Structure formats: C-alpha cells, structure tokens
C-alpha cells in the first residue's frame, strides 16, 4: 500500500493538525457568518424622502439603533415620479418590503398591494392626532393599510419683501379673491409674478384643487366624491373648475404655468424671489423650512388661500391630511421586520426627528412643543391647521387628477371651455376603476 503524502511521521502529523485547524477555523467562520446572516434582516423601503435626506439618514440610524437585527435599505424616488416606479412593482407583485403612499384614495386604490395592519401595529396609531387616511374610507374601524407620521396640507406662502416692493402691506396679505386680484395687479406692475404655479403633473390636483373646492363643497360632498357619487356636472363641481380657471384667466400666474410642474419649476420661481405667492404644503418638500432657508425666515409668511365664497362652511378651514403613510407590501417575506418599521414611523422618536431635523409637523401627540423651530411662517401654520377639514385632492382618482391638470392647461391657454373641461372630468370619473359603482 502506497502511503499518502501526509500519512506518516512528525511532519505528517503537524500538517494534519494544521489542516484540521484550518478546517475548524473555516467552519467556525462560516458558521459565524451564517449566524450573522440569519440574525440580520434587511428590509427595502420605497419612499420619496419626505422631509429630506438628512431626516431620512437620522431616521434610519435611529431605527437601526433601536432594532439592531433589522437593516434598512432605502429606495428613494422623486415624488412626481413615484407612481411610475411603484406601479410596476405592484403589477408584478414584487419589490420593496415597505412602501410609502399618499393617504386616502391613492392608498385605497392600491390596497391589494398592502398587508392589512395587525392590531399590535395599529396600537401605535393611538398616539397620533389621526390615522384614518390609512384606513379604508377614512374609517379606523375598517381595514387599515398604512400608518402616517406627519401632518400635511395646503397653505399659501408669501414673500414679504416682494409684497412691500409692490406697495402692499406684508402684515395684511389678501384674504379674499378680490383682494388677491388687487394685490396681483400691483405685484405685476412691479414686474414680478404674482402666483408661482405649474400645471403639469399631479400638483394641480393635490395643491390647488382642494383650496378652491373648500369654497363650494361640504364634507358630505367630499365623501360623495370619494364614493364616485358626486358628478362633475354638479353646479358645485363646475364652480370649482371655474374658480381654478379664474386663477390663470386673471393673469395671476407665470406664463410658463401650462408647461411646467410646480415642483421643482414653480417652487423655483417663488424661491428665486420672482413671485409674491406660491401655493404649496406645510410639510415635506417645498415647505416653510425650505422656503425660509432660501428667502430668509423674516421674509416668509404663510396664510390660508384667499376665499372665493367667504361664508362657505369650509372657507376658513385647512385642507389637512396625514402627510403620507407607510405600509407593508403584500408580497414581502420579511413582514415582522417591515411592521416594526411602520410602527417606528408613527412613534414618538421619529416624530421628534421629523420636527428637529426636517422642520416637519408631526401627528404624534406626545411631541414636546418646545422643540419646534422658531419661525413666523410656522407659527402662522400652527394657527391655520387648528381648524382642519377633509383634503379634497386625495379623493381624486388618477384619471381625474390627470384630466384636471391637462384641462386646466388648455383652459389657461384659451383652447378649452369650462363646459368641455367639465365633460372631460365627468368622463375621467366614469373611467376611474376605483370609483365605478
């Protein structure tokens, strides 16, 4: 029998010992790696980074600190491109473990892509001012698919410097449509744009429509809209369209309005100091913190949109909605970790980060008010949001939001009548899968 090379002698023993040692070390290392891989769960979170990059960096760090066995991988998409990225994921039933969505109809439309939140996760909702936008038909007793973290809604920002240059009293911005018209005449005479606006994309539906709708609709009308039972041919809805059309017809806006989006183009016009007013939102992107940083907090004011019908029941209200909600995707195989993240989003620690780092307005009732940044625009916003109502924008279907924007573009260019716009809106309503009776 031929001896093996390592079969005999001292050198053979030492080599065998070395090999055994190596094998043991390798197995230990592999075993260790396997244990590590088993211990850490990585979840992918699809989001549009509401509140900005710094806030999300801090948020992920805090979550991972609290949950050392879960690692978060962010997939961040710009807000105006979000539906186009999320759509294919939902259609193919694959992709991220956690997804962000606007509360309301947009979430209800996509509810099959979300896992219903279990009671232990919904428990976190009790610390919030509201979380109904994540639940079917805005009813917390029905199935809920996502939890919110911040408060969102529309206000009109104004640049005090531009108003003063135009000979207006910056301490008393316009409160009615007529006052706004008079102010715009002066601003235009001073060579500036009165209202910075962009009519492309989803912004007209979310940021402008609700503010005009409050002048004509009641909350019951809005619930009827959600159920698809409020036709666009109804005189109230026609008045809303007329109100929107009057903004561009009166020449308040930048001439590029029909071909640009409010974010970033419209907001850029306001941020550059070339416009007196901009209708945007209280939290996330294009908010008081972002504008204040560029224009200077001392030059920035926030007000309710001027009223068209002063005695309308909701004219003095705030179109508020949970900013966005986070839910767990139905196809995720890491649901426990994903639910943990959703719960964290609604929690107090995240609420404080939102306020401190992003200057956002949290829905969590336990946030210490003293940590809020000092800003006059923020103080004005905190006053405005005290009288909330439903946000009509999130009740529009994708078809309606698209027809609203395209119709308004054509109306402002004088190529479409209000009657034809109304007819298009009605067709869009009838073609909306989520609103079919």
């Amino acid at each position, binding site marked *: 029998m031929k001896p093996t090379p390592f079969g005999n002698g001292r050198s053979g023993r030492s080599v065998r010992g070395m090999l055994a040692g190596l094998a043991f070390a390798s197995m230990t290392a592999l075993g260790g790696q396997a244990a590590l891989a088993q211990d850490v769960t990585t979840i992918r979170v699809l989001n549009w980074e509401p509140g900005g990059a710094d806030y999300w960096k801090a948020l992920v760090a805090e979550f991972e600190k609290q949950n050392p066995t879960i690692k978060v991988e962010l997939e961040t998409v710009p807000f105006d491109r979000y539906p186009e990225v999320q*759509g294919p994921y939902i259609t193919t039933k694959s992709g991220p473990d956690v997804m962000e969505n606007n509360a309301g109809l947009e979430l209800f*439309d996509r509810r*099959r892509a979300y896992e219903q939140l279990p009671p232990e996760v919904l428990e976190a909702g009790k610390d919030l001012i509201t979380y109904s936008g994540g639940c079917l038909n805005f009813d917390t007793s029905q199935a809920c698919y996502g939890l919110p973290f911040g408060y969102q809604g529309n206000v009109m920002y104004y640049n005090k410097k531009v108003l003063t240059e135009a000979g207006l009293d910056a301490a008393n911005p316009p409160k009615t449509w007529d006052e706004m018209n008079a102010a715009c005449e002066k601003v235009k005479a001073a060579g500036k744009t009165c209202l910075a606006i962009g009519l492309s994309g989803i912004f007209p539906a979310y940021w402008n429509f609700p503010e005009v709708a409050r002048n004509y609709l009641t909350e019951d009308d809005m619930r009827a809209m959600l159920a698809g039972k409020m036709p666009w041919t109804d005189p109230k809805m026609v008045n809303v369209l007329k109100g929107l059309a009057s903004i561009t017809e009166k020449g308040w806006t930048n*001439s*590029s309005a029909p071909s640009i989006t409010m974010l970033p*183009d419209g907001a850029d016009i306001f941020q550059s100091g070339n416009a007196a007013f901009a209708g945007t939102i209280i939290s996330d992107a294009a908010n008081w913190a972002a504008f204040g940083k560029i224009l200077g907090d001392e030059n920035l004011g926030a007000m309710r949109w001027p009223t068209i019908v002063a005695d309308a029941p909701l004219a003095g209200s705030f179109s508020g909605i949970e900013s966005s909600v986070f839910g767990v995707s139905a196809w995720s195989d890491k649901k426990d970790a994903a639910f943990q993240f959703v719960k964290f989003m609604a929690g107090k620690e995240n609420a404080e980060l939102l306020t401190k780092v992003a200057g956002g307005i949290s829905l969590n009732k336990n946030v210490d008010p003293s940590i809020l940044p000092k800003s006059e625009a923020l103080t004005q916003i905190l006053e405005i949001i005290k009288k909330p109502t439903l946000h009509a924008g999130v009740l529009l279907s994708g078809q309606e939001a698209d027809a609203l924007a395209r119709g308004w573009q054509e109306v402002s260019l004088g190529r479409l009548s209000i009657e034809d716009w109304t007819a298009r809106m009605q067709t869009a309503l009838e073609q909306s*899968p989520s609103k079919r009776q």
Partner: protein
Amino acid sequence: MAELANLARGAGDARARPFIRRDMLIAILFVLPGLALAILFKLVPLVRTIWLSLQETRGFEDPTFAGLANYRAMVADPAVADSFRNALIAFATLPIWIVLPLVLAFLLFQKTPGWKFFRAAFFLPYMIAPIVVGIMFRQILAPDGPLNAVLRAIGLAPLAIEWLNGPTSALLALTAVALWSFFGLGVLTYLSGLSTVSEEVVEAAKLDGAGFWQLLFHIIMPLLKSVIGYWAVLCTSGILIWMFPLIYALTKGGPGTATVLPEFLVFTTTFQFMDRGKGAAIGMALFVFVAIVSAFVVRRMYVEGSKPR
C-alpha cells in the same frame, strides 16, 4: 451480381442515412437558442399583452374577461386619437431626420474646415441620457429661457414664442429636441457608409462640375440607398417608440394632450390610471401602427437595396 451488389449497398446506405442531415442538425442547433429567446422575450410577452387587452382590470384587483371592451373604450377615447395624430405629425418630420445627418456627414466626409472637431461634437448629444436632455431643454425652451433671450438679443423677438405652451410648437419642439439628441448617431451611420464610396467617383463628378448638392443628391444618395433605408427604419422606431423619456422630462404630454404620443399613453393608462387592460389595448394598437409603418420603410429598403447599382 453487380446489380444485386448495388442494390444491397443502396439498402445499406438507406439504413445508414440519418433522419436529419448532420449539417441541418448543426444549423438547427445554432438557430435554436435565438429562436428560444425570441419566443421567450418577444412572442410570449406579445401573446400575454393580447390576452391582457381582453381583460377588464379594476385597479389591482384580479382581471376578468371583457372581450373587446378595452378596444371599444380605446376607440371612444379622444386622448388615444390625439396621441396617434401626434405620432403621425412627428412621423411627418422623418425626411428631416434622414437628410440633415446625411448633409452633415457629407460635409465631414469632404473634410470641411473643423471636420475633426464637428465629428466629435455631433456625436456628443447622443451620449447624453434622454431624461437629462429633457430637463435641459425644459429650461432652454422656457418663455424667459436662454433660447428666447438669444432670439431677442439678435433682433428676432417675434420668433421668441412660448415654445412649450403652443399645441403645434410644443410637439415640434419635442421632435426637434429628439432630433438633436439622435442625429449624431445618424452622422456616424452615414460616415460609415461614406467610407465605402470611392473617392475617384466623387473627384470625377467634381471635375465634371458637380456642386455640393448635385454631388449629394445625384452621386452620394444613390450610392447610400441601403444605409439611408437602414437609418430610416431606426428613425421610424425612434420617433414612434423611443420618445418616452423626453416626453416625460420635457412636457409630460402637455399642454393638454399636445405632446402625448401613444407610448406615453400606454404608460399613464397602465401605471397612473391602473387600467392595465386598456393600456394593453393601446399598446397593441401602437404595435400594429409601428408594424405597418416599419413594414413600408423596410420594404422600400429591400427594394432599393436589391436594385443593381
């Protein structure tokens, strides 16, 4: 005996002859992977799209069979008609897409002063991502953007229009931006074709007194017919099915539906309106439309290519 022996040999040959010849087998083996890929990635998705176009889809709920309902809805939808009308208008610019790069390529071929610089410069736009091109031109074409500033500065103020606000100007602006982004590839394609043209032929024509345009139309174009045909097919698909990123970044299809092309409508219908069935039906209509137009162009290319020079 000899006959018997031949018969026996013949029978033996018949027994030995394989069912498929060896060269045929090799040919099939070479073709199979390509065929499998074509079936998997072309035919199967096409059949699935046809099937989806016959389904009614309510958001993300499970679809139900709807027959031709999506096609009827598509025909009744004015946005669909608008998008195909826009596609035809954009397609009508095809001669510019074909001739402009050819003229530029011929100038380079003739070593016009600065040709080395322009050869690189012309290709540069093609290397910029279409989405970036769209964002770039949204700024350039703005009412107070650089293009209008230049026009006003050189005394052409009447031409400083709101490019992206007018229904015709927006579509033409979109097409022009696409052409700007794409023409460099055309120049390169034509240059490779021109490299096969004999210099003696060009010199002889020049000696006979042919000018630039005579040379181009009577000498170069007949010699480059097959290259022109190839480029025409590329441009056809470029105009009809590759404009999406530009539309998305530049106009989002607006104002109104002025710059909505069918491919953009397929996307919005499917992913924004959650109407996958109707989106698939529009996609099928686009497929047929492109197939008809391309078939015409390809046929012309083969007819011209097969003619003796």
